[in-house]
């Protein structure tokens, strides 16, 4: 690696780290403990962790097969699909929420049939999970598809000639090989779910303990008490940092073996 790389790299790091310092500088440390342990804060934190975990599971269940199909499949329409799957990344979350509303809402494309069947999603915790999954799915798919492409099919071919069925090869060879990509995709998806705001607000609403996740709580507190909002934002950052550190820590250790 050329030495001069460090200069722009440091600039890049500063660009991200400084604003985080900017937040830290604004925290009212005296009130911090009481602010973050209020009922509403704790309820929001609990809900956020629960829904982010659930949506990450949903994203894994849908996204891993999707990434595999995109990386290894040979159907003609796949290239178009690959582009479509990325679109939630570019949609402003509020528009994404609108799209979900127009689809799964009571009057939506699919929602009207669900409504007939007695299933109502709006204003439920399930809606939060869906909104989070919608915005985080592309993160997983993109990371994983890249890893699958670089891992290539050579090891899978060897596994096949050793008698491994595609399913066996998938579980015992493909998945372990792309574990770093899968791990970073999962972390990204979880983090994105944790930070999700616009789509949740639009599609799921904001009721304490049911749909008001930490970012929504931050947003709400900002109106009334900016100090509390900053303190909560800091909690969000800390939780996210812990998750990221944990995942990356394990990954780095795995890479050493």
């Amino acid at each position: 690696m050329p030495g001069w790389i460090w200069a722009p790299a440091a600039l890049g790091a500063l660009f991200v780290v400084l604003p985080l310092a900017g937040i830290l500088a604004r925290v009212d440390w005296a009130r911090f403990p009481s602010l973050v342990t209020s009922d509403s804060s704790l309820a929001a934190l609990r809900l956020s962790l629960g829904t982010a975990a659930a949506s990450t599971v949903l994203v894994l269940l849908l996204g891993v097969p999707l990434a595999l199909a995109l990386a290894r499949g040979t159907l003609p329409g796949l290239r178009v699909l690959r582009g479509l799957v990325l679109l939630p990344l570019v949609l402003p979350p509020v528009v994404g929420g609108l799209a979900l509303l127009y689809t799964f809402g009571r009057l939506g494309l699919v929602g009207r049939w669900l409504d007939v069947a007695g299933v109502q999603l709006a204003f439920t915790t399930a809606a939060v999970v869906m909104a989070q999954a919608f915005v985080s799915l592309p993160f997983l798919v993109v990371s994983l598809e890249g890893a699958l492409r670089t891992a290539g099919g050579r090891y899978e071919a060897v596994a096949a000639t050793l008698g491994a069925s595609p399913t066996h090869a998938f579980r015992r060879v493909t998945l372990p090989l792309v574990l770093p990509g899968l791990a970073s995709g999962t972390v990204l998806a979880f983090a994105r779910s944790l930070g999700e705001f616009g789509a949740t607000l639009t599609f799921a609403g904001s009721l304490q303990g049911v749909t008001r996740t930490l970012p929504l709580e931050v947003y709400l507190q900002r109106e009334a008490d900016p100090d509390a909002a900053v303190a909560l934002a800091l909690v969000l950052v800390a939780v996210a940092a812990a998750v990221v550190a944990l995942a990356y820590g394990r990954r780095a250790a795995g890479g050493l073996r």
Partner: protein
Amino acid sequence: MNAYLTVDAGLAARGVRLAVGVGQGERVAVMGPNGAGKSTLFGLCAGLLRPDEGRVALGGQVLADASGAWIPPHRRGIALLAQEPLLFPHLSVLENVAFAPRAAGAQRGAARAAAGRWLEEVGASALADRRPAELSGGQAQRVAIARALAAEPRVLLLDEPFAALDVDAAPALRRLLRRVLAGRTALVITHEPLDAHLLADRVLVLEGGRAAEDGSTAEVLERPRSRFAAGLAGLNLLQGIGPAAAAGAGTSRSSSAAASSGTAAGARISIEGLGEVSGTVPEGADQPAGGEAAVAVFRPADVSVFAPHDAPHGSPRNVWPATVLELEPRGAHVRVHCAPGTEASRPGVAGPSAGEASAGAGAAAPGILADLTPAAAAELDLVPGAGVVLVVKATAVSVYAVG
């Protein structure tokens, strides 16, 4: 064809079109220059490549054909050991070897026990707990061999299994493979005639995507019909045509009965640039027929080298003036590469001898190899460019038809 494994298929993109049959329990050595299509043949068998022409069948079942029939690789029972070891990097050595038993449904414990046995067989038990990244190239290949064996497949394809092994470790694995391949259907890609002798009943020589030679190992390596096969067996091979008037006991191909009587029949063939060459027709081979393709084959050790002024004369000897191209020390002897003709008569002789010209063996310039002791070479003061006379006794030359 009542062969067990039948490949009568082509892949136009790689310029490969092969028709090959392998009997059950037969072991075939696949040889040929780089790019000849050896690995492509294996890909077609293993199901890693789809033929765009013809079909591949095993035990009466069509594995693949150009019209779309397709048995996926894992249901073919054909294990492939590739040129690169490709050990699964996330599994330990033991788990790598246990992979195939596990895939076949064995319990974890049973699979690991089986893997342990195979590792022991290849002398790699001590490596069981390592990761593939911690192995040297040779160690990795050894483990890959164990992994392929552990699959206990119907057909085993080995693509240069010894490529990365050192001279010291290879014999042990050769012995192992010889033991385990006995009675199995196996194809082995190798550049080493020894492997063909030891591991195969038959040799298939590919050139330019086509089968160039196909016969029992003894036949191909002891009575080669192509320069490539002769080169493999360490023999000189000169291509020519049978004499207008046959000099031997018979005059046609049907006269091979004479040769099979046990007495070697004398024969002459004519070779461009050398004139007539005398030799004997080996047992079981065909008498050269007038005007048809024939070859003269002899060992480099049977070629004597003399200074131009004191060459011996008189029948039954072949005497050829030649130019030294290169001296190649080979352990206990020196191999002299010669081009027939004198320097004056062959201007522009710069260096090419068998195999130099280009990637293909077919383009090789005709050359003669002679093996001398270092002392003899020093005495004759041989240097590249020197003129010499090569002498080969007729009894040391095999001539036969290859039409």
